[in-house]
């Protein structure tokens, strides 16, 4: 896939909505496409978080490995969503595993590039931080609802 094609994928992803073309260019520099087969690992807990992933197709499971129980998927991240935010804050290491659960395509933004662009431009920094926060709040609300076990016994 050519650089302009990748740039278009980034520009078309909901994560960059509200960013100017110049800002998209700034964070998309050096981005590459990652294609995964079902079951293929994207990253592992403890490894350096070198990329921010924008899912454009399929879905990827966020997993925890538990001795004796194997990998337990706790949620999935699908098309249109940001996968991972450990690249944003030190120590820039993943806290979970990520494994494709279907054929999946992601754009991998280079974390160093994105952080540098944000450090250079406070307005971009704010917009990126807000988009990450939007993802985090949605993921947190979902986690709380999952925790409620709404469809379990003792619930309507």
């Amino acid at each position, binding site marked *: 896939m050519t650089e302009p094609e990748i740039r278009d994928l980034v520009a078309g992803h909901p994560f960059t909505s509200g960013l100017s073309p110049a800002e998209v260019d700034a964070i998309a520099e050096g981005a590459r496409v990652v294609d995964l087969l079902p079951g293929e690992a994207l990253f592992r807990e403890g490894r350096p978080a070198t990329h921010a992933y924008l899912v454009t197709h399929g879905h990827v499971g966020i997993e925890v490995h538990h001795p004796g129980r194997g990998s337990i998927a706790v949620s999935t991240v699908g098309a249109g969503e940001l996968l991972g935010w450990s690249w944003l804050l030190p120590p820039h290491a993943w806290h979970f595993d990520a494994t494709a659960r279907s054929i999946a395509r992601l754009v991998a933004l280079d974390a160093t590039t994105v952080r540098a662009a944000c450090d250079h431009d406070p307005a971009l920094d704010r917009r990126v931080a807000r988009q990450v926060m939007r993802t985090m709040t949605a993921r947190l609300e979902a986690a709380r609802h999952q925790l409620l076990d709404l469809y379990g*016994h*003792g*619930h*309507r």
Partner: protein
Amino acid sequence: MGTDTGAVVVDVAGFDALLALLARERRVLGPVLADGVIGIGEIAGVADLPAGWTDEQAPGRYRAVRRDDDALFGYAVGQRSWRTEVNPSRLPLLQIRRRRAGEGDRDGARHQEVLPADPRAGVEPTAWVGVRGCDLAALAVSDRVLLGGEHPDPHYAERRRDVFVVAVDCTSPASTCFCPSMGTGPAAAGAGHPGPTPDLHVHEVCTTDRHELVCRPGTDAGRALLAAVAAEARPATAADETTAAEAIAEAARRIDEHRHLDAEGLAGRLEAALEHPRWDDVAERCLSCANCTLVCPTCFCSTVETTTDLAGTETTRTRVADSCFTLDHSYLHGGSVHASTRSRYRQWLTHKLDTWWDQFGTSGCTGCGRCTTWCPVGIDLVEEATAIAGPTAVAAHPEGGPS
């Protein structure tokens, strides 16, 4: 000089004759003193009425006491209302029977029949004597609830169909009464009264020199009954009507001075006060005992009991009165919606004064005061509603309401 309304005046003996005539054709129910309370029971004539008795009522207090005259209707309402006559507290609805059949039939599950209870069963022509304005208004409310919708209740309809109503003005109201606030009394009928037109509308005059009853017919049946006692009656005069009107006005003034509920815009004001701290306050006092809902003349909630005989061949569904003060009332699997006493009291009060308008186009409260008298801890509906909703209109109810 007579009036043109067909009204007549009878003395106590004449009224007794009138009741005797009624009792020939109908089961006659009226006020009777029993167990220290003026309730409702079968009567054959004036002798069965609690003549010379009255009641002293206050929040959480009721005493039947002697009067210093022989008035037949010199009291307010007791804990019984007419509600159970038309909407019994226990009512068999139907049976489902199954019989054991042949091989392969699991407990006869495939051979069943439904036997509905006949709504006419046990229903006979009835007369209600001594119905007050608040209770006649309550009958109109019940008519709306149980007959007004898409599915009229057949059991209520049959009990309601052939009732001869002798309504009696209230001139000895209790301290818990607030019918003028709700527009339901103390006159038992007449222009602007929300209740159905009674067959007879009676006003008792009992003074040192006079004990008579002014009887105005409201229906052909009422006119026929008055015609039958014509020999013992004289036509009512304008002076009789003036005396009655003055007594009503005086009673209304006394009640309203003592206890007034600002019903104007009340529904909207309550709707705006669903989180008022007073709900917590009243919940501290309320025992959630359901007494108010048992004595209320308009409360209609019911549930269905399903019982099966020991042989497992016959199952019976019985409709039984229910109360929004029970946890079961709002039970969904997992728990009750109205888990706290606060929410149950709020459900009750807002239903009566607020959401009843949305559901049935009328108030669910007629100002009879029973809930207040019979509350074991004396919670006063007027006091609570006023504390919560405030005394003045601040918002209009979106669906209309008393205005």
